[in-house]
């Protein structure tokens, strides 16, 4: 089990009802963290449309996560 802080933005924040939360989960990758949060909050956005960052650095869904990491979950972006 790893202690992971998850930060939510835009629609993910509204689904979760919080800006961030600390989870203790069995996760190897960013994708595992995303899946755990989706299960936790009952959402179903495909990860392919979304982006992820770990400790303020853009990452891939198969990037490994470590105990103490902060994972930022970005729903589909729409600037401009």
């Amino acid at each position: 089990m790893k202690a992971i802080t998850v930060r939510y933005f835009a629609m993910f924040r509204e689904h979760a009802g919080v800006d961030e939360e600390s989870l203790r989960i069995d996760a190897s990758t960013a994708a595992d963290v995303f899946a755990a949060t989706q299960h936790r909050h009952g959402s179903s956005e495909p990860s392919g449309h979304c982006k992820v960052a770990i400790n303020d650095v853009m990452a891939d869904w198969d990037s490994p996560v470590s105990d103490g990491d902060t994972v930022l979950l970005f729903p589909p972006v729409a600037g401009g």
Partner: protein
Amino acid sequence: MIAITTNTIDPDHLRRELFDAGAGAYCSFEGWIRNENEGQSVLRLEYEAYEPLALTEGEKILAEAQRQFPYLHAHCVHRTGMLEIGECAVWVGVSSAHRDEAFQACRYIIDQLKVRLPIWKKEHYVDGHSGWVNCERCAKSA
């Protein structure tokens, strides 16, 4: 340079910052808030950004544009907060020796920032509802 701001974008002021004695061309793009999207009447738009990564990713885009279309100066400013119809949400300006670089760099920067910057917009509709806008091109490229 890229900036995220809650203040009104002033294109005339931003344009002057790109002046250069070696520049023979200047190209800019302004993204405006319009009153309709996918058949729904829009009252206003609300933008949210994660500024630390929007700035680092934006600087990467400017550097990529510089390598591909060498320009003299390029600036980009994106608004956050609540914007009314007709307001400028994003501004990109490029000055260069010749027009090709200015056109192409400007196009590259706006196209890339729309799909890469952690920025989201929520439409508030005339009927009182609201909804987050999904970037169509992001979904297609995923």
